[in-house]
């Protein structure tokens, strides 16, 4: 366990975006991730913030990106897709674990509030 490399610590917004990428399961792109966060977490986030964060996460090696083919519904423009890298997975797992450990025993109280 301790021989493994320490997983990256994520900021709150980075977490949201990474979860968005995870939920879109391989076909995530800016607007779909933005919508995922907006619909699920009820947080109005902006596209530019999502892209800025994705760019940063990519530089940290947590996600990778590739460019799709142009489509008609985008006016002939291409999409930039994102998917989780293993390090991204590890960082999310770590964040989830921390969250669970820190909330253990308080679930009912937190849910009620």
């Amino acid at each position, binding site marked *: 366990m301790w021989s493994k490399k320490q997983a990256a610590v994520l900021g709150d917004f980075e977490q949201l975006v990474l979860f968005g990428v995870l939920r879109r399961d391989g076909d995530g792109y800016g607007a779909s991730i933005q919508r995922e966060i907006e619909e699920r977490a009820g947080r109005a986030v902006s*596209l530019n913030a999502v892209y800025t964060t994705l760019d940063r996460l990519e530089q940290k090696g947590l996600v990778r990106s590739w460019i799709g083919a142009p489509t008609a519904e985008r006016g002939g423009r291409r999409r930039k897709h994102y998917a989780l890298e293993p390090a991204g997975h590890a960082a999310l797992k770590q964040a989830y674990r921390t969250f669970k450990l820190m909330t253990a025993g308080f679930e009912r109280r937190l849910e009620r509030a």
Partner: protein
Amino acid sequence: VTDTGLPRLLAALLRLRLGGEWLEFVLGDLEEEFQRRRRLGGTAASVWLWRQGLACLLRPPPRLGHGASKPAGDGSMHSMAHDVLYAARVLRKSPGFTLTVLLTLALGVGATSAIFSVVDAVMLRPLPYPNADRLVSFFYTFRSGAIAPGAVSPVMFAFWKEHSAIFEALAVTGGGDFNFLSDAGAQRARGLRVSDDFFHVLGIQPAIGRAFLDGEQQPNGPRVAILSHGLWQRAMGGRMDAIDRQITLNDRDYTVVGVMPGDFTYEPQPDVIVPLQMAVNPADIGLNYTILGLLAPTLTVQSAQPDMERVFQQYRSENPGHLSKQMVGASVGLVQDHLTAPYRPVFTILLAAVGLVLLIVCANVTNLLLSRGAVRRREMAIRTALGASRGRLVGHVMAESLLLALAGGVCSLLLAFWGVRVLLSLSPAGIPRLASVGLDGRVLLFAAVVSVVSGVACGAMGSLRLVRTGPGEALKASASTGGPDRSRQRLSSALVVAEVAISAILLTGAALLIVTYFNLRSLRPGFDPENLLVVEYPLTSQRYATAERIVGFESSLLEEVRALPGVLSATAASGLPFQRGLNHVAVIEGRADEEWQLIEYRAVGPEYFSTLGIPVLQGRGIEASDIAAGPPVVVVNQRMARIIDGGPGALGARITIGKRTSSTDVTRDVVGVVADIADGPPGVPALPTVYVPRGQSGMLGSRSFSATLIRVRPFADVAASVRHAIGTLDPTLPIVSIRPLSEVAAAALAPQRFNMTLIGAFAGAALLLTIVGLYGLLSYGVTQRTREIGLRVALGAARGRVVGMVLRRGMTLSLAGTVLGVAGALGLSRFMSSLLFGVSGTSFTVFAAVVIALLGLAMMATLVPAVRATRIEPNVALRTD
């Protein structure tokens, strides 16, 4: 890549702001997601789109792969960045002030930019041809001294080509629309017939294929055509093998030899270009062809003049009787001037009006900065006392102004964007190059310069005074009396006087145009234009090559239409009321040929007068028995009847239409006199008009334009049935329009409505800004003088005197401004005389109304702070500060 679905402004701004690949991903995301959300709800989707778009504009994602950017630069840049940040903070702390300034600036700069974009596209930008600066057409000088653009006859063209030495190339063009038949059905195609040097003169060649060859210009030469890029796309799907294919124009086969470039524009924009194949017939002396010349490279419009004069006089002496005696000279003028000449007065006045609004905006912003400056004097004084250098303070103040100016400029673009749309939707038909109006780089640059200049000028006037006073003085002044700062008050007062004066000028202009519009609209045309439906169709194809065929088609159509439920009567005509008929000449029997008379020629069918409701005063109207084989007859209007013999004796007189030079110029009996109707352009009294039976009119006036006029019962909707009837009779005939005559009448008034609405809107904006400015100044004065007023009231001053004091100040300023404004308006209104109808530029009523309205509103703006002054409680007032 297109921007379908995305607002063009947003896409354009994003394109400026986002670099490289982000642009593609972000625009793509916005479009895809917007389309998806629009299915759920239009408004929510638009809100989402603009929110996301603006967020991306404010904080675009970092450049790909570069991570967060680091601030760079030397110390002075640092301090400048610091100034800007500080300014932003200061402005955010007083949102009311900031918002007022921004909105005011946005209004001024936005309106100015919108007007500029139209003026730029229509008048300033050179025509899109390589030799635009040498492209000329003919202007004629008339005995009255007037100079107007004019056309030429074939004889004249040939003569000039032979005798003139100033042109590198000379071409003529003619119009004439086509009935274009394709798989998609019949449609009307705008035609342009050109002589051989046309492409040389313009300096433009077809993008695909070739221009016309010499042999193709012979009369009855081969039928070849060059398509516009648009028609090539629409009708042939942009096929590269379009060359040498056959198309059908007016039932005849033409071979396509070329396609024009996509950015080719011409006024009016043609769909098809064909060879003119003009025959030089000495009898054909009508000035019906537009001339287009390319001056030799070394010549200018001025240096070409002697040659023009020489050839004109030579032509006149060799061809007596060809030109009207009224024409005394000819000159060349740039085509650009020819195209824009009719619109010059309107656009000049619009530019002036919007410039005046901008001045008011600047005055208001300056006043706002001045008032705020008074409050901030202490802040500045303390900072100076603490050791801030004067340069640093100037930097702060200028950074604030600049920031306000730039933010105002950005807001103004939104306004300009909507403004341009409103302008385009209001603008009357026929203004050249209107399609190319838009917010392009030139307009953006213009808006940037205007907003920065006005913002900085206001800032300099309003705020620099702050840093001029010494710290001790400022601290003392604001701490003790709280009294007004005299020199600041003087400047503010002068600005308000100027605002009132400018408003008075604009209001006068607007009032004159409003009176003009309603004068024109309330003109009784002399017939009943309500419940009349007009159907327009071009009878240009081969199957209508003779008058018999046209009449044949029309009588079967009328027969069907008259049988429709809801139709009271129906008739046919070669033109519409409220639009000009054919310009022609007539000679009255018993007078010399030289005494020909200019007339308005209208070919009409039976029941024309009863359908329109024009009273037949003497004799009879046009009847179904007036066929081609019958005795030639004509009905004239009162004005023409008076010209024939001064009144009642016109009946039975004989007139010849044309100059008796052609076999078709037959002599006709006048069989009826009808009432004059105002069916020409608005405001023009009835012209001498002759009504010739459709069946006897030959091809005159029928070729390119025909219409059916239908009198219907109120609320009867027969358009679909009429469409069906025409489709059954001739499925290849395109219907140009089916609309009520009231729409034609409204369209004829569109230029006046355009002038009135725009100047009215500017005057309204000016008035609003002025009243707000006046109110702000007085209200601020009352606040500043709270202590003084309180003291006066405590010492026993009556409330009435306090009201009087504030009122006197406000009304003195307003009165001074009004007097100046009225003087200015009296001086300027003569420039408007060409736009007015039924009202004099110095109308006492109009001026009185403007003065009363302006002073009344100023009184209202003054009363509010005056009454507030009386509510000041002495004990509260003396404790302030």
